[in-house]
């Protein structure tokens, strides 16, 4: 390693030799950097999981434009949209089809565990509004009480979910009504619920007696092929007389909710702060280590100054140390981080995974912030005065 660094820097790797001269302190320093890395990884993992689970329900449907109430910041919250606007939207030449989407939360009390299912009520005869993986099952929903169940729902045994077939449906009782799961799709638990369920609008009204077909949660629109969703949305905003409605291309609706979850909701903000705190912890740890190391070697540095070494040489030593700490601390950091995310993911069934993007981001961040702390630590170098050596 010493030889490699010697070749790399074209000089004696003093920073490296100084750090490794005290293996105990070096190990503690690396543990500190690794700890900061793990902190950031866990928070980033949670942020990613939140993004994945926020966007997941949007993936079940296929639409070009979504009309929602002004306070509908997320898929399942906020006011309803009057069905009459759907008819008005159909007046636009580019709008070919429209469907009301109903969203509600159901609790399936199952053998002592309560499974919170985000339930979608759809029109079973409009197959163009569900994404391709779900179209096959849509016909099944025409039977009253039939549902398509999330086979990855938290609390639902996997073997039980795997046995669900149209011929061998899973019957269960919710809100005093018997439902029959005839098929499954891949959803998964998120931050807001344990899983998803798809049913017809008629079954939905039976489950939620207070809901009426006149007021869906969202209105989904399909456009004629080649039509521009953004331009159509702008036209619809002018056309529809209720100006409080949010009329957006479907893709931007998803991104808007993601932004809302990340910046307005406490969980998103907390994860964001977690990343900042992890970075600060790492910054402080590396700064402490490097400035203590500079303070410990003031006499040696003063000697080097007397010998004719200039400021750039000392800056080089500290930056070399910052680089060594950043790189060598990252390795255990990414390993432990991956382990913790995997365990957390298994326990919570949240989509927590280490991604290459995360690893690269954190690695670059680690090196950049280590160098930043190193630059801060070099301020103490001024205290090395060779005139004090005699």
């Amino acid at each position, binding site marked *: 390693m010493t030889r490699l660094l010697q070749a790399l820097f074209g000089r004696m790797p003093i920073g490296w030799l100084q750090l490794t001269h005290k293996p105990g302190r070096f190990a503690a320093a690396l543990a500190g950097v690794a700890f900061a890395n793990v902190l950031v990884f866990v928070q980033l993992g949670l942020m990613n999981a939140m993004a994945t689970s926020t966007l997941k329900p949007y993936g079940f449907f296929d639409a070009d434009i979504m009309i929602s109430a002004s306070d509908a910041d997320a898929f399942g919250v906020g006011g309803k949209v009057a069905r009459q606007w759907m008819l008005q939207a159909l007046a636009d030449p580019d709008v070919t089809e429209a469907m009301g989407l109903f969203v509600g939360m159901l609790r399936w009390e199952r053998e002592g565990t309560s499974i919170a299912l985000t339930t979608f009520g759809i029109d079973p005869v409009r197959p163009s509004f569900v994404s391709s993986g779900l179209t096959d099952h849509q016909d099944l929903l025409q039977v009253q009480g039939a549902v398509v169940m999330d086979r990855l729902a938290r609390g639902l045994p996997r073997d039980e979910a795997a046995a669900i077939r149209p011929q061998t449906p899973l019957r269960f009782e919710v809100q005093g009504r018997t439902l029959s799961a005839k098929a499954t799709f891949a959803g998964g638990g998120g931050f807001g619920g344990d899983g998803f369920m798809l049913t017809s609008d008629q079954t939905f009204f039976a489950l939620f007696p207070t809901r009426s077909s006149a007021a869906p949660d969202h209105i989904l629109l399909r456009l004629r092929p080649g039509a521009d969703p953004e331009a159509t949305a702008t036209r619809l905003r002018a056309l529809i007389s209720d100006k409080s409605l949010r009329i957006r291309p479907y893709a931007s609706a998803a991104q808007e909710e993601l932004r809302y979850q990340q910046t307005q909701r406490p969980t998103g903000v907390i994860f964001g702060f977690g990343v900042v705190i992890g970075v600060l912890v790492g910054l402080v740890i590396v700064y402490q280590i490097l400035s203590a190391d500079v303070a410990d070697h003031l006499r040696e540095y003063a*000697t080097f100054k007397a010998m004719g070494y200039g400021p750039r040489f000392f800056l080089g030593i500290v930056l070399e140390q910052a680089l060594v700490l950043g790189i060598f601390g990252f390795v255990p950091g990414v390993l432990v981080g991956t382990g913790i995310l995997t365990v957390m993911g298994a326990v919570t069934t949240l989509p927590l995974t280490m991604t290459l993007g995360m690893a690269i981001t954190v690695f670059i961040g680690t090196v950049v912030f280590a160098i930043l702390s190193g630059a801060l630590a070099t301020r103490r170098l001024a205290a090395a005065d060779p005139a004090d050596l005699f």
Partner: protein
Amino acid sequence: MQDSSVIEVCGLNHWFGTGDARKQAMFDINLSLPRGSFTVLMGPSGSGKTTLLTLVGCLRSVQDGSIRLLGQELHGASAETLTRLRKRLGFIFQAHNLHESLTALQNVIMGIEVKGGVSEEVAHQAAEHALGLLGLGDRVDYLPASLSGGQKQRVAISRALVGNPSLILADEPTAALDKDSAADVVDLLKRMGAAQGTTTLLVTHDNRILDRADRILTLEDGRVIASS
């Protein structure tokens, strides 16, 4: 003049402190050291020997008067000039001031690398040679912690000499050495003076060294009181 004199000090005054606490430490010093000479600086503690060494060694800024070192005026010289000049000096301190994380050899290599443009292999060989000259050929890969006080001091001397300095500034360099090693070091310095024209300015109270000096300067209260 530059050819014969390595150091030319003219009307040098120096003060420490500011305001009321300002105290003059050097009074009208004039001296000149010819190339290759071996000069001993004597005087009681507090007489200004160290201050003179640090001024001549570019470790302190000249306040008043003139010091010409290797043909370069130090009064008003920039920090870069002083740093560049220091590369041509060899410092031997009373304490060895070795870097504890570096082996004897690596410590000595630091004395060559500062010059820049030297390949690792050449630096390695020169350092080994310098350590050999001071009888440490079998200790090159030892860390300072496993060397005796005398050995550490000899490593420090190797580090000062390895870059073939024009001027060696030494402060009690032989204090940690036994009689034989001390004599060897003085021999080596004098040999370098004769062979390469290396000039030595050395602070000591060691009588064995005084006998062999070309010149002895005695300082007292910041003034040169005797020169022989």
